[in-house]
């Protein structure tokens, strides 16, 4: 470890992995509720399981991004973190706030939580992914501001690189767009319009900058390719991301009551959205092909390459599959969306966080990389999770195609719940593949405890 204060990243990574396990457990509960409707009812109703599953995902990815930034920025800036104490304090604030929020989802009905948490003062709850009560949302803003202050001050007083600048741009964008979660107009069209400014401009905008920066950092470290080459690629990728992703928001505006021109703008620009992911995959493989050294951390290299491939498939291909307005007319809100969401989140954001963890965690634990045995186990977890995610996506896609056909295309369309019964087989297959994913995750966690011939950093 080049700088002592990089150690601030470690608790963030540990919390991220812990919450990841929680997310998958609730995913399995919810997956079972698709086919056994009263499973765990009334203790954990479906809407609560879903909320916990998605909220945990967001929170653990944020932990991962913050941990990644605390590790990356001192090394890029060639200076200690501005305030390691602030980083540690904010970790606990975020963890406690996050845990209390999840517990409150589970402990009481959502309407009661809204009543207790001051939703009548500023109404922000009740919207998908932004279900957090007002104090939690305010807490997220406080933590984000403190985090950004810490990171920005570190960058300002040290070396400025393209990677740290793009990371900062992404993190500031993340914080700024979150502010739209406080805006909840009573007009439903306006509400959904700005809701996407958080959700879409996060995952198909500023988060991609964070993804690009983290990936570029790890690729420089594991390949030894010149920084100039990697930074040029990074500029191209983020330019493509922003050009396609910002106007691409229009693909969410087709059927919510916005003007019809969005069907053209949304279709054209979001059809181009696979291009940055395409470039990212070429980038990752090109850098590894041109590597100047054999880094001993083979697991981190595998995660980096996997990020390129899976984000291209999940976000690029599966996004394109249903992004054109005439197709989306039939597919919106079906299991095809769920298929895309699963593979895109896993391929782009889960994998990039696991990439930086895989690279940084051994160094934070005092060695350049894990023992070969531990790495083999970690690579097993890579394949188990990745292959099972491919099959989860395929089964959900199959369910989605049948759903579209039976519910929306057929001459004699069937009601929603009747169709759900008919596609139950695919839900079962998805559930079992989800179990394999959980096994992969357990193997991943186990890899941290495997000893071997460790070399000091």
């Amino acid at each position, binding site marked *: 470890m080049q700088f002592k204060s990089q150690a601030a990243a470690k608790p963030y990574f540990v919390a991220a992995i812990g919450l990841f396990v929680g997310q998958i457990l609730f995913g399995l509960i919810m997956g079972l509720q698709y086919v056994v409707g009263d499973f765990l009812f009334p203790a954990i109703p479906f809407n609560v399981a879903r909320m916990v599953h998605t909220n945990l995902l967001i929170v653990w990815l944020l932990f991962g991004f913050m941990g990644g930034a605390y590790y990356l920025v001192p090394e890029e800036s060639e200076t200690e973190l501005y305030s390691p104490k602030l980083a540690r304090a904010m970790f606990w604030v975020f963890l406690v706030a996050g845990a209390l929020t999840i517990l409150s989802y589970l402990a009481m009905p959502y309407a009661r939580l809204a009543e207790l948490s001051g939703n009548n003062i500023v109404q922000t709850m009740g919207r998908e992914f932004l279900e957090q009560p007002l104090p939690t949302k305010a807490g997220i803003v406080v933590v984000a501001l403190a985090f950004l202050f810490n990171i920005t001050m570190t960058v300002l007083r040290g070396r400025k690189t393209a990677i740290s600048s793009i990371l900062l741009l992404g993190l500031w964008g993340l914080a700024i767009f979150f502010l739209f979660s406080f805006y909840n107009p009573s007009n439903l069209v306006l509400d959904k319009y700005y809701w996407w400014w958080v959700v879409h401009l996060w995952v198909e905008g500023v988060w991609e900058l964070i993804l690009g920066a983290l990936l570029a950092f790890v690729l420089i470290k594991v390949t030894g390719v010149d920084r100039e080459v990697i930074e040029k690629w990074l500029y191209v990728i983020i330019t493509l991301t922003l050009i396609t992703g910002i106007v691409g928001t229009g693909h969410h505006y087709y059927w919510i009551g916005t003007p019809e021109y969005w069907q053209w703008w949304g279709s054209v620009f979001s059809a181009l959205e696979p291009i940055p992911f*395409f470039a990212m*995959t*070429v980038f990752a*493989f*090109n850098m590894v*092909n*041109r590597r100047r050294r054999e880094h001993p951390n083979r697991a981190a290299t595998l995660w980096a390459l996997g990020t390129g*491939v899976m984000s*291209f*498939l999940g976000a690029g*291909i599966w996004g394109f*599959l249903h992004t054109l307005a005439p197709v989306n007319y039939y597919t919106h809100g079906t299991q095809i969306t769920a298929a895309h969401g699963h593979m895109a989140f896993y391929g782009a954001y889960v994998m990039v966080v696991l990439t930086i963890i895989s690279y940084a965690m051994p160094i934070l634990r005092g060695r350049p990389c894990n023992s070969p045995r531990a790495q083999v186990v970690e690579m097993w977890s890579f394949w188990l999770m990745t292959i099972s995610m491919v099959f989860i996506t*395929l089964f959900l*896609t*199959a369910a989605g*195609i*049948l759903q579209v*056909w*039976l519910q929306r*295309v*057929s001459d004699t369309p069937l009601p929603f719940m009747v169709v759900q019964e008919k596609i139950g087989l695919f839900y079962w297959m998805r559930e079992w593949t989800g179990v394999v994913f959980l096994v992969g995750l357990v193997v991943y966690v186990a890899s941290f405890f495997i000893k071997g011939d460790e070399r000091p950093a």
Partner: protein
Amino acid sequence: MAAAPRGLAVAVTAEALYLANLTVLPGLAFVALAVLGWYWRRADAPLVRNHLRQTLWVSGVGGALIALVASSLLFVHAEHDFVRGGSLWVVVVLYFTVVHSTLVLFGILGLARAMAGQSFRFPLIGPRLLP
């Protein structure tokens, strides 16, 4: 700075045309790839020979895998109850998506190899590497 391997530009162009044929310019890009292959048919640079041979062959096999198999699936079952039940669409759309995205992904790997001045064999359906 090390000199670029001989034939790098042609190899990269071949892989790029292979990808364009699968994505933005189906048919036209294949014609361009065929012309490129014909023009460089006597090239002795191993990089050029390798990438042209791979992309031309896999474009053909890939085209057959995508167009012929998907359309024959539809043709064979056109009057069958299976179609009316929607199950055929599950098979055809999944088949098309999986095969097409796999071919694109292979192309990306090939392009990255070409850009690095390295030879490449498409997994599963690529012809054997020349000695």
